[in-house]
C-alpha cells in the first residue's frame, strides 16, 4: 500500500447559514481545500462526499455528483458516503484507500450537512434514524436519550461525577471561544452547564451540541508526489474503520463503544504507535459524556478514568494531551455529515503549526469520528514530516 498525504483543507464556518444551500456549503469547503492545495480541478480523479440526512432535511439526494459538477470536476466517480455522524470520517477513509491501493493519485473528500432550516422535531427524528428502527427507535429513544442513559451508567459504574462531565463543556466552549468558525464563541461557566435545561436526564442543554450547518473538505494525494504540490504535506499514517452494535441492549458495557476501540486498535497498529505517542486529538464529543467515553476507548486513559482526566486538566489546551483544541462539536456545532472532516481540518492545522489554539510541538495527531449508537467509528492518525 502507498502512503497518503493531505495537501489541502477547507472548512466553512459552522452555525446557522440562512439562504445558503447544502450544495453551496459543500462547494465553499471544496473550493477552499482545492485552493489551499493549489491544484487544478482537472487533477482530481475521484470525489467522496460524506452526508447523513440531506434527503430528510433538505430533500436533496445525488449530492456527490451535483456538488462535483458545479465544482467543475469532469467525468470522475463521485460517491456519497453515509455512516450517520461518521459519514465524512468514512469518506476520508475511502479516499485514503483509493490512493493507497494505487487506483488514483489525487482524491477530493468532503462532508456537508444543512440542519437549521428544518424544525427541531424533524431534526431529532432524522438523527434518530441512525439508531435501530426495529427496536430502540420504535420506543421513542433519541440520541440525547441514548447518551443520557450512557451518562447515568458511566456515573454509576465508574464514579464519574456530574461536575466532571460538565467540565468537558466548559473546556471545549473555552477553546471554541477563540475559533471564528465555531457555532458558539462564548465560554460557559460550570454552574451554567449544571443549571441548563434538562434534555434527557441527567443530560442537560449545555451537554449537547447545537444543530448546525457546515461543510469541510480535504485534498488527498499519494505521499511520494505530495511535495510537488504542497510545501507541508501531512501524512496519514494510520486509518481505522470498524463497526459495533447499533443498540444499547446489544452493548456488553454501556460505557464502551466497541467500534471506537476496534478502529483505534487498527489505526495504532497501522501507525506502529500507542496512545502515548499522540500529541493532540479531536474526538467525537457530540455530548459531554461522549468525550469521556472516547478518551477511554482510544486508550488515552484507563476505562473509567475519563472524568478525573478532565477534572485534572490532562485534556486541557495546556495539558499533557489536549483534546478538542478546536472547541469540539460542543462549541463548533455538529453538522453531522461534516463533522469527521472538520476534525481532520483541525488536526492538519495543528500539525502544520497554524491552528488557532496551537498545541506547541504537535507532531502526531488523531481524529476520532463516531456514528449512531456506536454503530460505526473511524480513527485516523496523522503526522507532520
Amino acid at each position: 500500500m502507498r502512503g497518503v498525504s493531505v495537501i489541502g483543507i477547507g472548512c466553512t464556518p459552522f452555525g446557522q447559514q440562512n439562504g445558503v444551500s447544502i450544495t453551496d456549503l459543500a462547494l465553499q469547503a471544496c473550493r477552499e481545500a482545492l485552493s489551499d492545495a493549489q491544484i487544478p480541478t482537472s487533477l482530481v480523479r475521484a470525489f467522496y462526499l460524506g452526508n447523513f440526512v440531506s434527503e430528510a432535511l433538505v430533500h436533496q439526494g445525488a449530492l456527490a455528483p451535483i456538488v462535483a459538477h458545479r465544482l467543475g470536476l469532469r467525468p470522475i466517480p463521485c460517491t456519497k458516503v453515509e455512516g450517520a455522524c461518521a459519514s465524512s470520517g468514512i469518506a476520508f477513509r475511502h479516499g485514503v484507500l483509493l490512493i493507497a491501493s494505487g487506483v488514483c493519485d489525487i482524491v477530493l473528500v468532503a462532508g456537508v450537512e444543512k440542519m437549521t432550516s428544518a424544525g427541531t422535531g424533524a431534526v431529532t427524528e432524522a438523527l434518530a434514524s441512525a439508531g435501530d428502527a426495529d427496536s430502540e427507535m420504535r420506543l421513542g429513544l433519541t440520541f440525547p436519550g441514548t447518551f443520557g442513559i450512557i451518562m447515568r451508567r458511566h456515573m454509576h459504574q465508574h464514579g464519574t461525577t456530574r461536575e466532571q462531565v460538565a467540565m468537558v463543556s466548559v473546556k471545549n466552549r473555552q477553546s471554541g471561544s477563540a475559533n471564528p468558525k465555531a457555532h458558539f464563541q462564548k465560554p460557559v461557566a460550570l454552574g451554567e452547564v449544571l443549571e441548563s435545561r434538562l434534555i434527557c436526564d441527567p443530560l442537560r442543554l449545555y451537554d449537547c451540541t447545537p444543530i448546525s450547518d457546515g461543510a469541510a473538505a480535504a485534498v488527498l494525494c499519494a505521499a511520494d508526489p505530495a511535495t510537488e504540490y504542497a510545501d507541508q504535506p501531512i501524512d496519514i499514517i494510520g486509518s481505522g474503520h470498524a463497526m459495533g452494535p447499533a443498540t444499547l441492549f446489544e452493548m456488553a458495557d454501556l460505557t464502551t463503544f466497541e467500534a471506537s476501540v476496534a478502529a483505534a486498535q487498527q489505526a495504532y497498529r497501522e501507525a506502529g504507535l500507542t496512545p502515548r505517542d499522540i500529541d493532540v486529538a479531536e474526538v467525537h464529543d457530540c455530548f459531554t459524556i461522549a468525550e469521556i467515553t472516547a478518551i477511554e476507548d482510544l486508550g488515552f486513559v484507563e476505562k473509567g478514568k475519563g472524568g478525573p482526566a478532565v477534572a485534572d486538566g490532562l485534556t486541557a489546551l495546556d495539558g499533557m494531551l489536549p483534546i478538542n483544541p478546536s472547541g469540539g462539536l460542543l462549541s463548533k456545532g455538529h453538522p453531522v455529515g461534516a463533522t469527521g472532516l472538520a476534525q481532520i481540518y483541525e488536526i492538519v492545522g495543528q500539525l502544520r503549526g497554524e491552528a488557532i489554539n496551537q498545541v506547541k510541538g504537535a507532531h502526531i495527531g488523531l481524529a476520532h469520528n463516531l456514528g449512531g449508537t456506536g454503530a460505526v467509528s473511524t480513527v485516523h492518525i496523522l503526522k507532520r514530516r
Partner: protein
Amino acid sequence: MASFEAFTCDACKGLFARSQRSCRRCGASAILPVNLSGRGLLTSFTTIRMPPTAFQGQEPYDIAVIDLEEGLRVTARLTVQAGRTAGIGDPVMFETMCPYGAAFRLIEEQE
C-alpha cells in the same frame, strides 16, 4: 404477574427479545418462544423531554435498559409510579406490550 415473551435458541440456549430466523450467537435455526419471569434490574435509564415528531405529546417519558434475571438485556419503556424515584439497580417488572414496545414498571423488593 405478566410473563415476558422472548425467544431462545434450542442449540446454544441464547436468549433474544425478538424472533429471528437464525440464532444471532451460533447461527442455528431452531428458535423457540419462551416465557421469562419478566423480573429484572434497572441498568440505566433516561427521561425523554424532547421527542421526535412521531412521539410529540407523550413527553416526558422514560426509557430504560433492563437486565432480566434470566440474563437477557432489553431496552424498554419504564413506568415510574407517582411519588417514586427510579435508581440504577432498582427491581423492575414487565408490565405490558405497548404499541412501541415492552413497558416495565418499578416494583417493591418484596413484590
